[in-house]
């Protein structure tokens, strides 16, 4: 009897979608092959359908109110928790970037480190962006007048093609900071990394449905994203002219907000200017409230 098994079959991971905190397969049963730089098969990856998008939309809508109702400080804690979970898996992600996305060791380490730091950075903004964007307004009557930001609702992120880890975090983190839920559509060369990231999110106290991740073909999904009446905003990275035009036209039907930004190279996503509180701004609404006071200060009144 031999002491050890001489050969074993590797247990390969099935990469699925991330919807409502669960990992379902695509309802369509369709898959795309993901290969590495050498052309070897890395994984079969779910090719999400419009119905998967619809399901994600339902999950995101359900989760959004509760997420926005949490205290800003608690949202901050959860984003920080994501950073913690990512840190503990940093070696896994570095290897994944090297194996699946063809990164050099140094670049992979830099991308993972920046991704973690970026989460911490946005975690800090949860209870601060309101001060930055909110305001008290001078008015000519006996009122306090405040303007303050509120969540928009559900935002779809068409994620960057480059930087399979950092690109995602740089785009969905500012969206959820403001109390939105999101559906991230990933169509890049290493979508397995997005699903690895979903495993981090699933263990970060992030309520299911706040972030949903769909892998698949972006051009196939965009018409349905643009026309979905329940979606509040679209954040599209790296759209060409045709996609931008098509999304803009489709978005008018339900008056969705659209935000288009250019994609960056992987190393540019690491730049400091790839993170900004002004990335939070497009996905919040402003509410102004008039609060009556007894008399105007300085006019002899009191309140």
């Amino acid at each position: 009897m031999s002491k050890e098994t001489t050969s074993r079959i590797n247990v390969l991971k099935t990469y699925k979608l991330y919807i409502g905190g669960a990992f379902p397969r695509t309802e369509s049963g369709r898959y795309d092959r993901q290969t590495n730089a050498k052309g070897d098969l890395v994984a079969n990856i779910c090719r999400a359908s419009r119905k998967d998008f619809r399901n994600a939309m339902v999950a995101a809508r359900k989760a959004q109110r509760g997420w926005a109702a949490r205290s800003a400080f608690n949202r901050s804690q959860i984003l920080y928790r994501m950073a913690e979970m990512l840190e503990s898996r940093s070696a896994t992600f570095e290897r994944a970037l090297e194996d699946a996305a063809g990164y050099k060791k140094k670049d992979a380490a830099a991308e993972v480190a920046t991704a973690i730091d970026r989460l911490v950075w946005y975690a800090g903004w949860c209870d601060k962006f309101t001060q930055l964007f909110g305001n008290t307004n001078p008015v000519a009557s006996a009122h306090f007048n405040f303007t303050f930001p509120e969540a928009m609702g559900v935002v779809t992120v068409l994620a960057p093609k480059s930087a399979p880890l950092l690109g995602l975090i740089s785009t969905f983190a500012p969206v959820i900071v403001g109390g939105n839920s999101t559906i991230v559509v990933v169509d890049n060369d290493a979508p397995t990394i997005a699903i690895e990231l979903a495993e981090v999110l699933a263990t970060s106290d992030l309520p299911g449905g706040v972030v949903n991740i769909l892998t698949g073909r972006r051009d196939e999904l965009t018409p349905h994203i643009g026309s979905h009446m329940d979606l509040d905003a679209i954040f599209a990275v790296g759209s060409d002219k045709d996609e931008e035009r098509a999304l803009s036209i489709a978005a008018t039907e339900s008056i969705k907000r659209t935000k288009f930004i250019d994609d960056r190279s992987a190393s540019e996503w690491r730049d400091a200017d790839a993170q900004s509180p002004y990335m939070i701004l497009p996905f919040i609404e402003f509410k102004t409230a008039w609060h009556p006071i007894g008399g105007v200060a300085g006019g002899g009144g009191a309140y």
Partner: protein
Amino acid sequence: MGNDYVPPRVPTIDEVGATERAKRFSSRSLKKSSKVAGLKLIASMVDLTTLEGADTPGKVETLCQKARQPDLQAPDVPSVGAVCVYPPMVPIAKRCLEGSGIKIAAVATYFPSGQADLDHRLVEVRETVKAGADEIDMVINRGDFLSGRYGRVFDEVEAVKEACGSARLKVILETGELKTYDNVRLASQIAIDAGADFIKTSTGKVQPAATMPVTLVMLETIRDHYLKTGKMVGMKPAGGIRTAKLALRYLAMVKEVLGDAWLSNEWFRFGASSLLNDLLMQLAKERSGNYQSSRYFTLG
């Protein structure tokens, strides 16, 4: 009376079998024009319901408007089968639904508990019918049923049926409180024997409300009764059917268990409130091709 009542002999229900059979109806795929036809048929079968302590005349008026023309932007969506309200709201519903052909259903007999003397419950039924209700949704006394006093259940349904006069009687079994499918089958048979025009699963106030296996057991009771006597009895699942998708599954079940004769609001109803909006959303989706948002559809 009561003591010499011999309850009907009914077959026992294989729980696993019923669950499995009900699950099969979930795999039917209805698309395009057959889906649209199904959705419209379901809309015409809805008993649009409001049964809240907080009901006001204004709310019932709004509900009746919605019942007449569910979607103002889509005149081809039929009006619903009936509006279902508490007895004091019947005159208001009657005024609002004049000439529409929509039935007025009222929950009488001390809904939802049914815990009152039979005399009081009969008075309520007579008054409600006099006020203009076309259909009475009664609850059986589950306490009597569960303690084995089947004769009393039979007698009360029979008495209520008589009090209804020309109004159709729906008998609510409150299956969520009957515990077993065997009980559901027996209660269904007793209600039918005592003269029920419809049997109905639930009040909507108790969980679980309508489920597919429970509805299946009741449909099979109706089928067996029809095969034996030639008498048709209607069915109304109520409570918990909120999506068009689920309602389509019920429709498939009715067709396959009872056949086309039951596919009209004369013999099948959905007791629901939020279902109607989901039907409208799915119909709008089929018209426009865009997935819809509930924010564009009215409340109630």
